[in-house]
């Protein structure tokens, strides 16, 4: 089967979704191919969720430019998509006088990059702001514009908006081969067929260099750098209200302690270079390292309320900067490669630039009118009593609480499945609604979520998956097991 489009985007992470949304404002046919079975399955679902202010990147680098621009776009973007955005501010703490020099260097760098409001706070002021912080703290860079967002929810909303405006998202599309035909069209082969396009966009995350190297003689080298985290339960009063970074030092980058937009506390990440970009396992050593380093910020550290550990893999280029724009030796090939931190912060700005470059290349016209994004209803848990009462009166499915830990209703789960690019897996429902995201980790709601998914999508219950590949929740009916035995092909049976 051959499918033709003007633009083919490879990868549906935060960058691919943002590019797709920008492109959906033009009169062009756009397809996004994703190798996994949902959006945001790579680094987008497993990072710190921070919109960095932009003090960290080397002045003049693409990381610096896109970070500061992207960060400035987020408040409006989140408001228009009904997404959480919390400007909680950040602190980069110095634990000795040597660190103070680093803090001052970061302030100067940030000012060069155009980050507003930076100042250095001293010991006493810091302990007033964050009373449980390490009392050895000397001073810290205060970054008032540092903010929190929900990375995967941002990608979902952008993809939904793109899909409303005509972009197709096609999942389970591993790129088997890619070439630029003599007629100038790109040909991308996947297990389900061939996709032809006039422009090809590389938003492939950790596969970015592989894709690039197939079409360009200018080879890139990518390092896969894993980061492991602890996610602690939300509490009425979290120990920290700011994102607290440690000074980068000879000992490494240090780990951060930060609230999340959902009121959890996040500790991490590590930075380990690994061979396999799909290896998002956590390790005993990695988790110990996070604990040890987080304790430097938070001496009274407690992981008693740990909900889960996870890890994500950064796409780090050995050249240490983003690559953004047209490929020098392959006309029509546009790229966003090496989008590691501050990639999330930069994504809206990267997308804006890439889309306008692509529009110029193809001579695209902007659409007269885009279909506006319908902001989803407020989460039930965030409604006032009156709003809750009205919601249940309007739709009794709001009266059925499916996830007890996060108070997620049946109505919200059905809505998540019915979104333009809706949930098709247990994890997809979890990230869109928070059902199963709480302290019991789906112990109670998993069977019910699986039932609702099966009902809505008509996927048989036995074929409902947790996430990708063969991540089936169930192995068979009780009757089938009794008839066959568990594994009749198994010699132990």
């Amino acid at each position: 089967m051959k499918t033709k489009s003007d633009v083919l985007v490879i990868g549906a992470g935060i960058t691919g979704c943002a590019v797709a949304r920008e492109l959906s404002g033009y009169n062009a046919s756009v397809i996004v191919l994703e190798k996994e079975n949902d959006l945001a399955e790579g680094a987008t679902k497993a990072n710190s969720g921070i919109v960095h202010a932009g003090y960290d990147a080397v002045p003049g680098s693409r990381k610096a430019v896109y970070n500061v621009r992207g960060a400035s776009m987020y408040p409006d973007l989140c408001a228009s998509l009904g997404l959480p955005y919390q400007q909680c501010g950040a602190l980069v703490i110095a634990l000795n006088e040597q660190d103070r020099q680093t803090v001052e260097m970061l302030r100067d760098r940030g000012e060069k990059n155009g980050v507003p409001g930076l100042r250095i706070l001293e010991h006493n002021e810091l302990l007033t702001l964050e009373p449980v912080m390490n009392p050895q703290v000397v001073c810290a860079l205060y970054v008032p514009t540092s903010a929190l967002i929900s990375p995967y929810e941002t990608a979902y909303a952008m993809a939904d908006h793109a899909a409303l405006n005509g972009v197709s998202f096609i999942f389970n599309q591993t790129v088997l081969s890619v070439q630029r035909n003599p007629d100038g069209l790109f040909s991308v082969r996947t297990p389900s067929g061939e996709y032809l396009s006039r422009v090809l966009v590389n938003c492939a995350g950790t596969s970015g260099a592989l894709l690039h190297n197939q079409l360009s003689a200018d080879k890139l080298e990518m390092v896969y750098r894993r980061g492991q985290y602890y996610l602690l339960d939300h509490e009425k009063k979290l120990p920290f209200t700011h994102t607290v970074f440690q000074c980068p030092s000879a000992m490494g980058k240090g780990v951060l302690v930060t609230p999340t937009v959902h009121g959890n506390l996040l500790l991490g990440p590590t930075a380990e270079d690994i061979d396999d970009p799909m290896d998002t396992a956590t390790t005993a050593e990695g988790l110990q390292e996070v604990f040890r380093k987080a304790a430097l910020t938070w001496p009274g550290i407690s992981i008693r309320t740990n909900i889960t550990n996870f890890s994500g893999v950064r796409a780090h280029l050995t050249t240490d900067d983003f690559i953004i724009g047209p490929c020098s030796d392959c006309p029509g090939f546009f790229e966003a490669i090496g989008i590691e931190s501050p990639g999330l912060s930069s994504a809206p700005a990267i997308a804006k630039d890439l889309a306008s470059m692509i529009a110029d290349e193809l001579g695209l016209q902007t659409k007269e009118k885009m279909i506006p994004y319908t902001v989803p209803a407020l989460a039930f848990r965030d409604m006032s009593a009156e709003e809750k009462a009205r919601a249940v009166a309007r739709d009794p499915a709001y009266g059925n609480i499916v996830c007890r830990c996060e108070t997620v209703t049946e109505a919200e789960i059905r809505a998540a499945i019915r979104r333009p690019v809706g949930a098709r897996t247990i994890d997809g429902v979890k990230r869109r609604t928070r059902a199963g995201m709480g302290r019991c980790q789906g112990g109670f709601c998993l069977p019910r979520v699986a039932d609702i998914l099966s009902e809505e999508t008509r996927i048989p219950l036995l074929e409902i998956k947790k996430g990708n590949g063969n991540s089936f929740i169930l192995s068979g009916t009780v009757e089938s097991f009794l008839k066959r035995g568990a594994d009749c092909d198994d010699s132990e049976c």
Partner: protein
Amino acid sequence: MTIRNVDVLVIGAGPAGLAAAIAVREAGIQSLLVIDREKEPGGILRQCIHNGFGLHRFQEELTGPEYAQRDIDKAHELNIPIECSTMVLSVSAGRCVTCVSAAHGLQCIQAKAVILAMGCRERPRGALCTPGTRCAGIYSAGTAQRFVNLEGYMPGKRVVILGSGDIGLIMARRMTLQGAKVLACVEIMPFSSGLNRNIVQCLQDYGIPLLLSHTVTDIQGLNRLEGITVSEVDENRNPVPGTEKHFDCDTLLLSCGLIPENELSLGAGVILSSATSGAVVDETFETSVPGIFACGNVLHVHDLVDHVSEESYKAGLSAAAFVQDRQADCLYFSVRDGSGVRGTVPQKIHRNVNAPVTLMFRPAGVYRNSSVVVECGKTELCRKKAMIFTPGEMSLITLKPDMLTSLESDTLTVRIERN
């Protein structure tokens, strides 16, 4: 929003809530309501289709649903209203309970007394910080039990069980009987946290090895579980390098402890005990918030439902007495955990108590040929011998009111000592 008034509101229609409600009604309270989040009353017993329930209370071996049905029938006989599919969103210190259901929408129920009987939940993988991948095929034993017993589905074929809690042991047998292969039950402690009868009847009878002082140190499988690594642990529960064993399995069931579900209690300002993770209560099962009582597994995790019912019936009588304003004065003994003892309930006792009080606790380790002793200062109040105390089995000792007269101190200590 509907606003209603009741004398006693019971949250939870499992064995604790049902027993408490029956007591409330039998004490003569007419205005009583039980609410439950599930579709039917019975709580976790609905999915416990094995037998062994009710030996103490009924001198019979009942299945979970049979045991629950006796209380459900009794509640119906007493015309106790039970509203199911109703989730409590909050409880205030003033005993206003906000709940929601599809049938009745959002309701605010103002009660003169509230009985917390929400039960407990299982400790999930996150609480264990087990490294590895986050694949499908890792379930709490209770979730697997629900899939198999209520929904009719098998979660997997080759199973390892982490933790030797009773639900894990029961599920080892259940999965085996249903045609799955259970490879091992792995316990980090040097002793099992389950009942001895379950170790014999659920593991030994089926030749399933119990690996004590072992834990899971790695989980493999990108999408569905493919295998796990099990290591021996030292006396500090740290894995010993070089002792790794690999198991090919597609399912890992977790039975690593139960946690009383007290989010609502905390919202009402109820003070919790760090030893039990349940409310601090006196011998009437009243919490630190006047008029709010707690019983069953939300108060402390029990081994036997018979004990849950007995305790909850008493809590129901107390709640009724509270409403009928037969409150005693408020001078208390406080009850402390001494050596070898953890999580004694109740944590305080009225000084003028006029009925026997049963102290319930968990031994902190395994003690052979020992006695449990209750003391007030240097005065020994009572003593009970046992062949063995283990953390897997809750211990009880009863104080008679006459033991509590003319004592010099207001602190009682419960401890275990060798004979």
